[in-house]
């Protein structure tokens, strides 16, 4: 059976302006995202018959509450709670739905609000395992677990804080023209990176994404429909998702992407050398290192050497990486953080960037990762996108 996504267009990348804190509820960000999707596409509310949503702060409301709140009638509805993998998985599932004819136009939206209490509550009640086995030992949130993972990675591969610092600095440089990046206007120097307040050793302030409010959204429809609407679009060359990939490992020595990397590149008929840009999931720098290894851009333990010879700058000749600055520069708007890579990938392929445009963008990869319920992330996903004909 063919696994091709032939005939499917992904288009209309939209971002609802990020804010450090908001007094609005999550529904505001869903509603504003949908309004922007309609305005940018020329579609009416009645044209949208599918909805895929992700949110941490929507509770007690759910996906169907969003439909009611926004006054849309749907033939297909999905709610994904897959953390930073949600955006790629949302795209993948919406594409199948359009391909099968279960819906014609699917709006995919990741949206969250943020206030000081909402984040602490989320951390306290993230999962049964986390509440019992992590929160009870210091209530350090995800930074505590990623500090353990980062320390372990540094010891295993001889990686230093400066190595992670260079990655963070390159992302901040990419953010400098992105008005949506909450930290975009602030240059990051190595001294500032190393001298920043320690959160959980070895992690400093600039290793940790800043929680914020906002939304990321896009539309999935047939290529025919996108062309008739004169919308520039991207096609899906291949997409994969995987869960609980290292259930039998003492330590998560990979991020799970390695389990489907072969299938992903085979379906795309492409390899890492063909990828012009990578939008990786950058909640913490160590996860970017893991993605570069797992997705075959370099050998395990070879990231530092790879970065010495590979320019990650959006305007460079190497691998353009997190071209909007990523979450480390933009902020992490809850589940929208998992959609950020998808919308930025679409922006690059359709010439609708917020900041810097990479030259002649034709093919790129977006990767997602999420849900550290106890000691490791459980969801990984990746998609290879290419520019559509009308782009």
């Amino acid at each position, binding site marked *: 059976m063919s696994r091709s996504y032939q005939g499917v267009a992904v288009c209309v990348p939209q971002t609802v302006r990020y804010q450090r804190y908001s007094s609005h509820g999550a529904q505001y960000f869903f509603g504003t995202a949908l309004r922007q999707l309609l305005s940018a596409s020329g579609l009416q509310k009645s044209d949208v018959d599918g909805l895929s949503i992700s949110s941490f702060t929507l509770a007690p409301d759910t996906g169907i509450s969003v439909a009611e709140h926004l006054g849309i009638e749907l033939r297909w509805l999905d709610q994904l709670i897959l953390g930073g993998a949600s955006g790629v998985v949302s795209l993948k599932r919406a594409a199948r739905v359009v391909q099968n004819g279960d819906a014609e136009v699917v709006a995919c939206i990741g949206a969250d609000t943020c206030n000081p209490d909402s*984040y*602490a509550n989320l*951390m*306290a009640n993230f999962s*049964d*395992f986390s509440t*019992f*086995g*992590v*929160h*009870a*030992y*210091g*209530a*350090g*949130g995800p*930074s*505590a*677990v990623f*500090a*353990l*993972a980062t*320390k*372990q990675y540094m*010891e295993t591969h001889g990686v230093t804080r400066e190595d992670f610092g260079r990655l963070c600095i390159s992302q901040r440089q990419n953010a400098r023209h992105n008005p949506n990046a909450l930290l975009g206007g602030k240059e990051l120097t190595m001294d500032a990176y190393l001298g920043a*307040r*320690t*959160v*959980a*050793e*070895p*992690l400093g302030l600039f290793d940790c994404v800043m929680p914020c409010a906002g939304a990321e959204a896009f539309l999935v429809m047939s290529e025919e429909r996108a062309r008739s609407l004169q919308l520039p679009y991207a096609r899906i060359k291949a997409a994969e998702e995987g869960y609980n990939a290292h259930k039998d*490992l*003492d*330590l998560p020595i990979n991020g799970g992407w390695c389990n489907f990397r072969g299938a992903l590149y085979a379906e795309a008929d492409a390899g890492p050398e063909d990828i012009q840009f990578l939008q990786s999931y950058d909640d913490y720098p160590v996860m970017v290192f893991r993605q570069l290894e797992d997705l075959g851009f370099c050998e395990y333990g070879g990231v530092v050497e790879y970065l010495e010879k590979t320019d990650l700058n959006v305007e460079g000749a190497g691998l353009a990486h997190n071209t909007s600055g990523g979450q480390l520069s933009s902020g992490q708007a809850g589940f929208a953080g998992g959609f950020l890579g998808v919308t930025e990938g679409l922006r690059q392929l359709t010439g609708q960037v917020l900041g810097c445009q990479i030259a002649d963008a034709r093919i790129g990869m977006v990767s997602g990762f999420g849900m550290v319920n*106890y*000691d490791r992330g459980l969801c990984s996903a990746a998609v290879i996108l290419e520019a559509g004909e009308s782009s």
Partner: protein
Amino acid sequence: MSSSIDVQSCSECGFVQYPPREVCRSCLSSDLEWTTIEGKGELLSWTRLHHSFEAEFQQQLPWDIAQVKLDKVSCIIANLTIENPSVGMKVVIRQKGDSDNPQYFVVENE
């Protein structure tokens, strides 16, 4: 003090698991019991927290936690009380819980 700790095990297949679950992760039996295992293990990683979301811990910062591997349990995250910890060192987990949370663990020198 004893270096043994109480963890959940499966009455049917003997699988030992942590954190505790409603069913056995291996054979899915719900016939689970508490079993006492040796707390000696290896320090996989550790961190010193300088930030916490809860007032109770904020007063005690900096606060050390560690990730420890035991023979039968791949990873326990617990409070670390060793002065100069290093990854790979031999450690022991001790149970210092109260009636509210009997499975509260601390990591000490072997």
